[in-house]
């Protein structure tokens, strides 16, 4: 990318299963005001605001209307990306690259505890042919997990290893809420949700919000000593009907990753990326997404996790934050991946810091079985 957009500041709420004392606007106000405060800026410094939420999850038509005062968009430019948060980061950065705006406050929120996940996720399927089958995110992802395991010979235990790793990583992340030391056996014997996905293979219901400040290069340098640059970003959508796809293949992610690598000048991602934050709503997804992004050959994911390549002390730490399995709300999840990846490059990841991380990859997805994919490459250094 010819011009650079920098991430200047980040603020996340603590993620919790049920934030009964905070309404959506209160969550949004907390992260919006704190990110400005911590960066030493005011809302006057922000040329625009991008919000990220879902009418379905909020139970509110025009969900950004609810939070306009909380995010400071009164008599200002604001727009809402109604997808995963990674796409919202993409849009915010793009609007800055257009030259129309110098800076952006990005705010993403979701309170899963106030919605009915099955009903909401069932609504993404075709009303005539598919909804009646009872499809939701969990049941269709179980189909994808089965197909992936069958086609590439990945074992349930290998998927469980992702949960073991990420839940343990989460113990060093103060924002995570389901962090724990578990064994493969405990994951395997946790409650079956939809074969082969068990309770500890699946993300927990979570409430929370995340805010970020982005700016043109000149302002980013002025506003922080630790800017993080977006050096590549791409998204792709696959076909909608599950029957039209081989669920073990993720063409949208392959293409998005390829494009993002090309923009960032990456030819060998395994060697050239230092840390990955990806969206594993279910444990199998971490293995599948990493293969699709070309970190290693198809079908190698199981062996890779066995060898500890993606562990905190491995060659390529994946989800040092504990990932979505440790508790991130949907919609916000992709923005949190970008935020956590940026924190690594700022050297502000605290106890889950990967030493010397210079380049990071963040990935987000939405739609049935990862239909829409977004990949963002970040680089540290002034």
């Amino acid at each position: 990318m010819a011009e650079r957009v920098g991430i200047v500041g980040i603020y996340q709420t603590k993620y919790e299963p049920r934030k009964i004392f905070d309404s959506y606007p209160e969550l949004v106000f907390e992260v919006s005001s704190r990110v400005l405060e911590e960066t030493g800026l005011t809302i006057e410094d922000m040329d625009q605001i991008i919000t990220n939420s879902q009418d379905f999850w909020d139970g509110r038509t025009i969900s950004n209307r609810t939070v306009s005062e909380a995010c400071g968009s009164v008599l200002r430019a604001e727009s809402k990306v109604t997808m995963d948060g990674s796409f919202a980061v993409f849009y915010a950065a793009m609007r800055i690259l257009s030259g129309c705006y110098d800076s952006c406050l990005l705010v993403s929120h979701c309170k899963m505890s106030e919605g009915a996940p099955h009903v909401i996720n069932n609504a993404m399927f075709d009303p005539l042919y598919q909804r009646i089958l009872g499809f939701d995110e969990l049941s269709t992802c179980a189909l994808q997990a089965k197909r992936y395991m069958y086609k590439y010979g990945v074992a349930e235990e290998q998927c469980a290893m992702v949960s073991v790793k990420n839940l343990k990583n989460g113990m060093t992340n103060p924002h995570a809420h389901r962090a724990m030391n578990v064994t493969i056996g405990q994951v395997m014997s946790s409650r079956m949700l939809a074969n082969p996905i068990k309770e500890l293979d699946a993300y927990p219901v979570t409430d929370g919000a995340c805010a970020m400040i982005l700016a043109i290069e000149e302002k980013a340098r002025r506003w922080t000593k630790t800017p993080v640059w977006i050096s590549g970003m791409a998204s792709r959508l696959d076909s909608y009907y599950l029957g039209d796809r081989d669920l073990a293949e993720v063409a949208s992610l392959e293409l998005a990753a390829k494009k993002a690598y090309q923009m960032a000048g990456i030819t060998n991602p395994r060697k050239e990326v230092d840390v990955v934050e990806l969206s594993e709503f279910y444990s199998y997804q971490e293995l599948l997404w990493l293969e699709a992004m070309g970190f290693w050959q198809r079908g190698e994911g199981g062996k890779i996790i066995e060898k500890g390549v993606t562990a905190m002390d491995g060659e390529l730490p994946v989800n040092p934050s504990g990932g979505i399995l440790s508790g991130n709300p949907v919609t916000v999840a992709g923005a949190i991946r970008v935020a956590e990846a940026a924190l690594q490059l700022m050297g502000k990841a605290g106890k889950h810091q990967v030493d010397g991380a210079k380049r990071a990859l963040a990935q987000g997805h939405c739609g049935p079985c990862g239909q829409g994919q977004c990949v963002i490459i970040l680089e540290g250094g002034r």
Partner: protein
Amino acid sequence: MRTTARRSKRNVAIVATGQTDHRSKRPDVNIIEMINEAVRRCLADARMTIEEIDGIVIGNMEHFEGIFFTEMWSVEGAGSFLKHGMKITTGGTTGTSLALAGYYHVASGLFDTVMTIGWEKQSEGETTAGLIFQADPLWERATMSGAIGSFAASAAAYMHKYGITEEQAAKVAVKNRKNALNNPHAHLRMDLTVEQVLKSKMLAYPIKMLDMCPTSDGACAMIFASEEKAKKIYQNPAWVIAGVTRHDQPFGGDLQMVVNLRTLRSATEEAYKISGIKDPLRDLDVAELYEPCTFAELSWYEAAGFCGPGEGGKLIDSGATYMDGELPVNPSGGVLSTNCIGATAMIRVAEAAIQVMGKGGQRQVPNVKRAMATGFGGSWWSDVMILSKTP
């Protein structure tokens, strides 16, 4: 208010548009097919194939049809298969938010050709129920009555404050629906008299049936292109000169609504500054205003600076905004003639572009050099885009 938006670094042009023929019900097509109809018409207008489009930006109001992740659901109809895709939704302004997104996509240098699609199939949902869901569940929802109630209350205040009459409002309905007779895509195409409007069924004083926009099924698609591509696609494209957004507070009680749409005032002031417009009535050649009801068009004249505060009624009386007036407003027939919500604001931009490109057929205003399109929605929010014949 300080200026926040600037003109983009790269020049961006609108090179093609495509619309369905909007109707109250389209039982002959499903939503995907309806979207596809607009996409194909847009590609035909550009003489392009879907392979030549780098990305798709789409939006609608999800609660109206009850479908979650509509951007995923509509991939096959929209043509976004294995392409960059994005969904932007902002209520009534969704269409302009999408058009602005098309502009930013290309202006960023990351894309050369981007298609934007807005759509709504209101016959397959319950719009008023969907609209009521925007109200705060504790404080506002019990008294929220959809669109008509808030327009009625604030239109009455507008009449009271400035002495605007029901007859003056009725003239807007007569003008716009007559203009729609020249627009093959319009839903309500009617040759009305002021008398007929005044005698139409009272919905909520002072709003009568013919003062209000309809509910329509329809879709609109547009193609935005970089300067290099635009020149190859269409020799006389509509260049985007300015794009401005203003949002406002969530609670209706904090806002003056129809009396003084401060978001439109603020947005137009900034858009005029960016595009060097001093006197909009003189400097603009045509405007497509998002007028959800007749009274709103009069009030928006004031907010957009076509006349002074309270002078909206006098402006329509003068004939300045008719097809042969100084600044024709809504040659397409406007929202009073067509309202497929996720597409409505985009149709304003598309129609303004059509005027600049000289493709208006019977609704063409002669010699259009500069056009304005506005979007309205959310909590009395406004978007403004200024298009020009020259980059």
